């Protein structure tokens, strides 16, 4: 130790209490951390990233291993550059924030097609973007937090700026995945400068 300066974190250092179970000392929970291991993020652990292009703008789909999907903006979406002003789920004929689902089967959820407008995003530059549903499926939940404060979309960590949660039918999953761009295909498109 180079200095004897008082460590401000000292009162908060973790101390394992001893306990014997099955005749063995219980290992401290900190043993679960492996410094050599690269911990994938929550999105990396449970989701696969897919992309959908509409009107030259890219949207990101987080596909959970249990087929639940989150619809987000792709990091290259032009709205980020223009500054996000407002998000509305009122798409003209229907207000998607009024969506109600019941029970395990999510009865009553709106049925959406891939190019159905899910929400409308207005930028500080005054442009409006119709956010597509990206997949065929049932609307389970919309992110109402975006209604009150659309600006948070700008800073939100990956996934937190989701517009909605959709549930596709099991039998449609293969077709849906085939219709979307994979992470690799999306990156190749970026390189070619198509989006």
């Amino acid at each position, binding site marked *: 130790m180079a200095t004897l300066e008082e460590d*401000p*974190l000292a009162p*908060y*250092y*973790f*101390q394992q209490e001893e*306990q014997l*179970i*099955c*005749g*063995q000392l*219980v290992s401290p*929970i*900190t043993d*679960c*951390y492996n*410094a050599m291991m690269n*911990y994938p*993020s*929550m999105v990396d652990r*449970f989701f696969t990233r897919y992309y959908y292009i509409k009107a030259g703008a890219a949207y990101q789909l987080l596909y*959970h291993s*249990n*087929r*639940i999907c*989150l619809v987000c903006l792709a990091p290259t979406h032009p709205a980020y550059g223009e500054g996000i002003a407002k998000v509305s789920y009122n798409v003209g004929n229907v207000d998607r924030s009024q969506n109600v*689902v*019941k*029970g*395990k089967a*999510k009865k009553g959820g709106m049925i959406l097609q891939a190019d159905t407008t899910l929400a409308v995003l207005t930028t500080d530059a005054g442009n409006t973007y119709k956010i597509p549903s990206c997949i065929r499926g049932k609307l*389970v*939940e919309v*992110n109402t*937090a975006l209604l009150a404060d659309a600006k948070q979309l700008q800073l*939100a*960590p990956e*996934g*937190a700026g*989701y517009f909605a*949660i959709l*549930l596709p039918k099991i039998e449609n999953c293969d077709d849906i995945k085939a219709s979307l761009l994979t992470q690799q295909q999306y990156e190749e498109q970026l390189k070619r400068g198509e989006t």
Partner: protein
Amino acid sequence: MKNQALIDYLAACGVCRVCQLRYLKARGNEYRDMQQTFKRLDVEVSPSAEAQDTPDEQPPKKPRFSICSTCLGLFSEEFQTQLIEGILKSDFANYDSEGIVLAISLPMTLQLRQLSMWFALQRQFGRSAIDDNCPPDVPIKEAVKLILHPIVCARLGKAYDANGLMINIDVRHSVEAAEVAKLAELNRAAFPAKAAHQKRIEISRGLLEKQYQPARIKAELFEKYLPIPPTAVEDALQLQAIELTGPLICVAGRYRKLSRELSHTPWVLHGKRIMEESIEEIIVRHVGPHFSETLEKITFMSSGREDVDVRCLGKGRPFVLEIANARRSSMTRQQAHQMEQAVDRTGKVSIHNLQVVPREQLTHIKTGEEQKRKYYRALCVLEQPVTLDILQKLQISASFDIQQKTPIRVLHRRPLHTRPRTIFSVKTRVFRDNPRLLIIDVVSQAGTYIKELVHGEFGRTTPSISSIIGKPIDILALDVVGIDLDWPADVNNAETE
């Protein structure tokens, strides 16, 4: 109506002594010393009949009158002897239950005969003396409890216990088929409207009990199909089968789980096992065989459950095994200790406080689930080393409420709800060797999803540990360290008495 007249009439109809007493509405132990009961009720019995029912000597019986026309010999000594022999010949010795209960399935003709005698008594003594709705006798079912139960219990050296070993006795009689056929005809005639309405009317004991009383059916109609009073029979009741059903035994304890690769119950996906073992199987395998041979019929219940990758430490989680048809109803402390040690040797699960508990106590585990407090320890990781400010923000001693949406990881199979949950306290420590690692102790209301409480799941749990510090935080590991349920009681099975 005098008792004497009643008894004389019944005797003339070939009704046995026990059933005569039934018609005098005798209770409980009045059946034990029948002579005395008759005397007390001022009834004289003919000496020959008296001799017949003295238990010490068994004179040869006249075949004609020996079988009672109302109970078909159910209460005769021969039947009792036959019954006891039958029980002893069954698997009876393999059950250690202190208490027994008889479940006798009787032919319906006994009910028909009761009704027939009811009509006969009304004719003999008038409808004012014999009520239309209330049967004149102590019903056979009740009489079985009053008469047969004490005798069988005494002969087998067991006590009566409604929750004890159930002895299922199937009794048949040769006239049953013919008389039930008559009853079916009678039923069509007596309730034609109903018969037309329904395609098939099941003639059942329940139907007999409900519909067949003098208040609902005329004696004249009844007599067209079946005789009044009931006629004598040639054969006695036949003991068809005896089956034993052991009592339902509940074995409680607490379990702890050391493995992060062990599911709660067998985990099967698309017909394939994901994991070889489960907590349920390990416990059932070591505790079950003492009580039952059919392990697959044992039900495992616990006060909540943890995820596959979560350990359960501290005092452990209360659980119960419900063992139906148990051969043994108890275990010694020493046996319990051996089971505990056997489970411990797996190195994955540990059980203690193992004990047999009364069934009523299961309510502890089943109710008030939402009220229970649960104690957790989470290992969390920040993107940057922790600051004093973050540590201070995560020392929370006052309880607060959160709103938690159904986590995405289970949303595909559970309804979407926003659940309010109370967090009672949060205490945070930092790992000395790595200041990005936090050890967070959380006390929460049962049913809180802790992993989501930590990272906030894209804002679907608010507030969350992440939203409180305003930074992303992820969870690497979780332990359950306490479950707020003081049941079952502490027992130290290792202690030898």
